[in-house]
């Protein structure tokens, strides 16, 4: 065996081991959700009882419903704010306080969540004391999630906006389109795909968040991750495995569908480009 072959197999081995490391926990979660044993880690045969138990688990179901509502609102709000912020960063090179703005946009990405959660909570409490609003609950969690979601949405949409050919927008302007027409007719269709990925990303982020929700939730507003977290803290719990499996299945379907749609759009575009070139 020569050095190049050894090298190639070493590379493959490293990648393989890395993927085992990344996926092992997910495989274990799914498998043990079918374990017919109250003692975790001891395999006693196949069962679906944890899933049927889930159907009457009111705490978990209420948490899931609340989480889905908040995640939907978060994703929509984050994409709107993220698009505006990305547009600002890419198109407007000079305005008062640009450095502060770009610093603030990126900061929530790396700031420890406990710090963001604490500071937001202390502010909301101060406001509530002053004007009696807002009550802690769904809305305050939504604000917190949107703060984080906006940062992620901005990164995703900004990357796409930077790659756009500015001549397309200039051409539309030369042809007499007004700025808002340029945006809706030229820019928006070109960044739709990145807005969609930003929507999905912020939706999953919100659906998964523990720390911000813990700080910002009030009585009666317990999201699904908070339910899972409080159970997982106490020890291993098969109901958590069942929830995990359902999430994994939904994600797998979603990703497969998204990649199919993207591949189809790509093919469509290649065909259209070829047709345009022939003409």
């Amino acid at each position, binding site marked *: 065996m020569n*050095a190049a072959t050894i090298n190639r197999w070493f*590379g493959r081995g*490293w*990648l393989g081991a890395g993927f085992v*490391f*990344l996926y*092992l*926990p*997910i495989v274990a*979660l799914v498998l*043990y959700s079918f374990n017919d044993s109250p003692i*975790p*880690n001891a395999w006693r045969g196949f069962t679906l009882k944890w899933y049927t138990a889930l159907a009457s688990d009111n705490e978990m179901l209420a948490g899931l419903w609340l989480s889905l509502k908040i995640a939907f609102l978060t994703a929509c709000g984050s994409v709107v*704010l993220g698009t*505006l912020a990305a*547009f*600002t960063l890419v198109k*407007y090179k000079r305005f008062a*306080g640009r450095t502060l*703005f*770009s*610093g*603030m*946009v*990126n900061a*929530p990405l*790396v*700031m*420890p969540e*406990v*710090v*963001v959660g*604490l*500071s*937001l909570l*202390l*502010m909301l409490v*101060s406001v509530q004391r002053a004007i009696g609003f807002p009550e802690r609950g769904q809305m305050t969690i939504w*604000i917190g999630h949107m*703060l984080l979601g*906006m940062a992620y949405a901005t990164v995703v949409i900004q990357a796409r906006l*930077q790659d756009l050919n500015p001549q397309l927008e200039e051409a539309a302007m030369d042809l007499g389109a007004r*700025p*808002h027409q340029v945006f809706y007719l030229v820019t928006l269709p070109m960044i739709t795909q990145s807005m969609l990925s930003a929507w999905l990303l912020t939706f*999953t982020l919100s659906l*998964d968040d*523990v*720390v911000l929700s813990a700080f910002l939730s009030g009585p009666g507003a317990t999201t699904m*991750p908070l339910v*899972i*977290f409080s159970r997982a*803290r106490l020890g*291993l719990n098969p109901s*958590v495995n069942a*929830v*995990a499996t359902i999430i994994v299945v939904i*994600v797998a379907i*979603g*990703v497969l569908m998204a*990649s199919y749609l993207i591949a189809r759009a790509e093919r469509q575009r290649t065909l259209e480009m070829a047709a345009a070139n022939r003409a």
Partner: protein
Amino acid sequence: MLQRLRSLATGRTAVIGVPYLWLLVFFLLPFLIVARISVSEMENVAFKDLVSFKDGLLQLSLKFSGYQFIAEDSLYFDTYLRSVQYAAATTLLCLGIGYPFAYFMARAKLTAQPALLMLVMLPFWTSFLLRVYAWKGLLSEGGWVADVIVGLGLDQLLFATGLIEAPGRLMNTPFSLVLGMTYTYLPFMILPLYANLAKMDLRLLEAASDLGATAWVAFWKITVPLSKAGIIAGSMLVFIPCVGEFVIPELLGGPRTLMIGRVMWDEFFSNNDWPMASSVAVVMVLLIIVPLAIFNKYQAEAQEARR
């Protein structure tokens, strides 16, 4: 024409203004409030005004007892130090595993790379909380990973280095904590490194080999220095959130692995001591402000380079 200019100007103001205002109100203002509360005296549930004007005397009262307490009480100092140590260990492990991983990914067949990239990102989409929870099962007695480690006798090694308290008991130790953090943050190391390594000009390596460098020398003298920006970005993306991590130590850590996020949490939720919790938060921000500045600098440079 004039009207058009005006509409352009107002549109521009709205586009900049809305996200700007949002960040000022919900990001910057809360930090200022935390800074203020960290030096405030608490009376029942209200805070005393920092500046008061009484009997013709203007008084500025700042209470630094929280900071003084942090500086004097070894609990806080030790916890900060421990948090930084665990974060640093996690960063090094992620770099050690992630660099070769990103390197082999970037040198894989071009047709295979999108699929590999997707496989790295896919776990992102399934709940982070649930994946951390899964390690609880894998590492506790009878779990798959625990069986392998004990079967190979590696637990003796971990015990000898003080990473676990007793042979065969892997959970709730520094070992399980750092493993969980490495697992969670590994993709954050791989992705910037891959983005960097994938666009490297391979002709440089050919030139090095023509000039007589071995592959090993070329790797250390060319590939690694050229990927410096990726290494720094990845390391900061791992290190900074790890310092303040809360969920992973709660699920995988133990009594010996108290981290600063938990201390702040307890000051706030258990002791109801808002000024103290705020002081801990301010010190935490000061701790990460240097890595944060480095990260922002490289991020800005990378964005300039894209154009």
